[in-house]
């Protein structure tokens, strides 16, 4: 009987807290938000706003270029690599897309955007972590593209995003701007220890 009561209380408490976690901000979460977070994080986090409230209506394409010091001592700036397009080519016609193609860069970019202010300054620990993460993805991707060339070393990298509206459906009669919107991040130096991406 005791066990029954304990389990019943635990089940109700867990479900109640998880419910408050997914519910919009409300009277109870304003008072007890900390208790809810305390219980839900780290293991019971839930993200179920799947394509909600609105699905993403833009294609965000993350692009990258680098400054490379070549074997003869010169500095060369590469062209832009469209990393999202590389992902897209990996996903096209693929019945089992990998998380490396579908989530890695896409979520790293979302993480960056969510943890930086409009002047690209990091907010908190997560902000700096997201920069380190993007920079290492850059090294990995440049390495895969052999961007440095023989004897070359990547010195600095720069990201930009190109956001294009999805053209509204033909039957809706809506018009949106077809012009892409760019966000260019500052150049980041690549630390010596990060240069050789060993993650290939």
């Amino acid at each position, binding site marked *: 009987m005791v066990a029954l009561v304990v389990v019943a209380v635990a089940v109700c408490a867990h479900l109640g807290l998880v419910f408050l976690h997914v519910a919009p901000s409300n009277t109870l979460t304003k008072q007890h938000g900390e208790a809810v977070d305390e219980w839900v994080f*780290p293991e019971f986090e839930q993200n179920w706003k799947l394509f909600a409230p609105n699905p993403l209506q833009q294609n965000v394409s993350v692009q990258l270029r680098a400054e490379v010091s070549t074997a003869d001592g010169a500095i060369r700036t590469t062209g832009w690599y469209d990393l999202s397009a590389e992902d897209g080519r990996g996903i096209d016609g693929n019945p089992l897309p990998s998380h*490396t193609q579908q989530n890695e860069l896409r979520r790293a970019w979302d993480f960056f955007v969510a943890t930086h202010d409009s002047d690209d300054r990091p907010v908190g620990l997560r902000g700096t972590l997201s920069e380190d993460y993007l920079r290492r993805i850059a090294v990995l991707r440049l390495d895969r593209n052999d961007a440095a060339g023989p004897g070359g070393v990547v010195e600095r990298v720069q990201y930009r995003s190109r956001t294009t509206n999805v053209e509204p459906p033909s039957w809706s009669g809506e018009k949106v701007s077809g012009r892409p919107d760019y966000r260019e991040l500052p150049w980041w130096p690549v630390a010596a220890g990060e240069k050789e991406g060993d993650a290939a």
Partner: protein
Amino acid sequence: MNGIALSVSRGIARVTGAALGPYQTAVIRIGFGATWLLFLLRELPHRHELYGPGSPWGHDLAEQLIADNGAFTVLMWSDGRVWFEIVYALAVLSSVLFLLGWRTRTMSVIFMVGVLSLQNRSVFMGDGGDNVLHLMSIYLVLTRCGQVWSLDARRARRADGARARGERVVDRAGPALWWVFGFVLITLTVTGGLDGDWFVPALLWAVWAAQGLWWAVGRWAGGGEPRILLDVIANIVHNGGLVVIMAEACLIYATAGWYKIQGSRWQDGTAVYYPLNLDYFSPWPALSEALAANGTMVMLITYGTVAVQVAFPFTLFNRRVKNVLLAAMMAEHAVIAVVLGLPFFSLAMIAADAVFLPTSFLRRLGGWAARARAGLPGRLPAGRGDGGGDGGGDGRTGAVPGPRSRKAAESDKDPGHTHVGFRT
């Protein structure tokens, strides 16, 4: 008044007397086990980039984040490549054994440790499918999900048969696993490997202690009252876990649905058009284009999706409507798997949906599987098929299995021993 008291006592008898939904918990065990196994095999060539020491989400970055949130992962204990390979291999192995129902309770714990360790190591590599698996791997530890369709059930049947013939049945693997499990736990607790958030370590210790108690009572108290008490407690915990699993599935749909209602694109009936035109979610552009071409179709699917997601939790009160919606949702997830290129997310969602399948359907499914196996050449003599044996578990609905499904569990005589991992 008398009527209320009577139904309350009947309810108590039900949730204490049996681990309900033996087929439903078995099918989700198989479903989530298979999802994780297939995912790990698919990502085998990318495992280092996702979770390994060479991941762009470096060990040092993960360490800083985990120091902040306390998430559980054994991959933080070392940034060595060998350790990573061991953990990955154990995750694969445990998902196979969990899926087959070998020492189910112990495997459910190792399965959970594998899921949490890899996912928490690189939390930004995951998506909704990983999130579902993460939660369900924890909840499944609470359930007796190996009562049917498992190697444990087969072993129990054979042991019963042997005992009936007067033979002595000795189990060595169970106690051995328990000692290993205990040794690892003690070592880790002493060396600080389990610092961080308290929940997962507490769960590990609780399961280990419960298994030890179960074994000790079985050994020294025979089949007497203490054993029955433990069995009742295990049933209650199982039934609580099952409620949480079902409520979690409802919460997923309710959240997805109710937030959609607030979105202008779901209101104007064009929402489904947009994901079909995102580069990351259109592996078959021609197919996506064909689907997005018809405005009326897009609107019907858009409205239908919201209606089904919002309505689903309420339909649990009506078996027939629930089953229709369940079929619709499973079908939609199958389509999503292909069209949006999210096979593992869809598989995880279908596995979660399966907890609501009616017992009669699941038993038929088990029958087909057994017949399919029988048709294969060179099969093993005694199948892993319908472990429920003679139990007539034709429950009324998956959500609330009927009284007869209790019989199914009871017909196993003592289903508990199948998952607690071992017996003497």
